[in-house]
């Protein structure tokens, strides 16, 4: 049986690795649920799972050929996101299939490349290891998150309009193709960078679980954005402290605290609905 070390949670901030993990999770809690709400609005949540796994293939390639994995994963993620976008436009009935094919292709590539990648490194990219991040990672992530948030604010209304009715936007002479491709590019870059920092598993959960919770408890776009960011912040910080205190797997624990947050939101919204009735 593995030993579980219990540490004093208050000591955590005296360690720079903890502070870096803490900051990274806050940054990602701000941006990933916002992307998730948009993807859910387009009925396209599965793309985050596919892109985080294609990023993984990029990371594996980077590790094998000795390039900083964040760059190779961005390139992989961008290429697959554009492929998905093209298939979605040309063959709209086959978009689910496109996601699954690209996911299978990426995982196949991961399987082959991971044989040649240093294994100790690779696992942290899969399951996430916010405690092993470097200052450079933090700088890259901060830049990406700030650019992402500026984009989300400036393009908030056009993205809402595109999710609502793309054809109406075309009739209104909006540059729909350009806006969709810009959105795809920004989404895939953020997912690729986030996958590098916290692993594919956590990225997919940050993009979907707090979003489902936010959509459950709020009945507006602004409210859902705010609720999912707050749920994501609270559950990832609680998860981080639990993982630190009991020396448990950070990524896995944060997924669990996110799911716990989702369950609480479902229960509270059901109680509210009963009260209203």
């Amino acid at each position, binding site marked *: 049986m593995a030993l579980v070390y219990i540490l004093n949670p208050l000591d955590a901030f005296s360690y720079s690795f903890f502070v870096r993990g803490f900051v990274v999770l806050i940054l990602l809690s701000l941006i990933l649920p916002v992307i998730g*709400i948009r993807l*859910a*609005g387009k*009925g396209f*949540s599965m793309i985050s799972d596919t892109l985080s796994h294609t990023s993984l293939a990029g990371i594996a390639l980077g590790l094998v050929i000795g390039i900083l994995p964040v760059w190779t994963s961005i390139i992989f993620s961008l290429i697959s996101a554009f492929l998905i976008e093209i298939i979605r436009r040309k063959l709209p009935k086959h978009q689910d299939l496109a996601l699954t094919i690209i996911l299978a292709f990426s995982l196949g590539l991961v399987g082959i490349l991971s044989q040649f990648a240093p294994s100790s490194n690779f696992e942290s990219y899969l399951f996430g290891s916010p405690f092993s991040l470097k200052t450079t990672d933090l700088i890259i992530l901060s830049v990406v998150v700030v650019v992402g948030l500026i984009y989300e604010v*400036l*393009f908030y*209304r*056009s993205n*809402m*309009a595109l*999710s*609502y*009715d793309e*054809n*109406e*936007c*075309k*009739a*209104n*002479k*909006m540059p729909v193709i350009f*806006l969709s491709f810009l959105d795809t590019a920004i989404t895939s870059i953020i997912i690729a960078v986030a996958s590098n920092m916290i692993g594919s598993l956590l990225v997919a959960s940050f993009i979907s679980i707090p979003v489902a919770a*936010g*959509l459950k408890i*709020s*009945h*507006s*776009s*602004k409210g*859902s*954005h705010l609720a999912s960011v707050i749920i994501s912040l609270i559950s990832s910080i609680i998860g981080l402290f639990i993982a630190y205190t009991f020396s448990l797997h950070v990524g896995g624990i944060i997924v669990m605290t996110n799911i716990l947050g989702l369950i609480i939101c479902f229960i509270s919204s059901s109680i509210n609905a009963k009260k209203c009735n």
Partner: protein
Amino acid sequence: MKIEFKNVNFNYDNDVVFSNLNLEIKEGEFVGLVGNNGTGKSTIIKLIAGIVKAKSGEIFNDFHSVGYLSQVNINKRNSFSANVREIVSLGLKKKPFSFMTKKDYQKVDDILHKMGIYELRNKRLDELSGGQQEKVRFAEVILSNPDLILLDEPTTGIDEVSKQEIKNILKSLLKEKKTIVMVSHMQEDFPEGCRFIDLDKEEK
């Protein structure tokens, strides 16, 4: 301002929808496009809106702004987070770098009152009936105050009461001399005074 189709051809892969179609719609007209399934009624609306492109022929459209109400798959909207007020506000501002002001929201609330859906303002589309959804979509298009309104089967799949309410909205748009092109299977869905183009009788 007018719309003119000259010898327009359109096909999906090998299926010819129409060939050598000629039609003209003038400013202030309410035109009803009728005809059997597969005659290309919705396609004409999409061609006017610029959503699809003709395979050959000329389409002339000098209306500056176009409001388009598409046929919609309600189930798709379940995970769309915006509520009625936010959706209708898109009629005012939907371009990148645009932001809503208090005055804008006042305009949104005014149209919600006018359409009788103010009480629904905090609900999401998936919480509304088909008829209520249609009124929300109408409110969004009317708020954008377009020169030309394109309506693709706005009364399909909704209850009789809502159908009558939609018809009243159409009547008031007709009175305001708005230019409207509408598609429907049912002739009784159109308000009196509208000019019909029967695609079964047009040259195919």
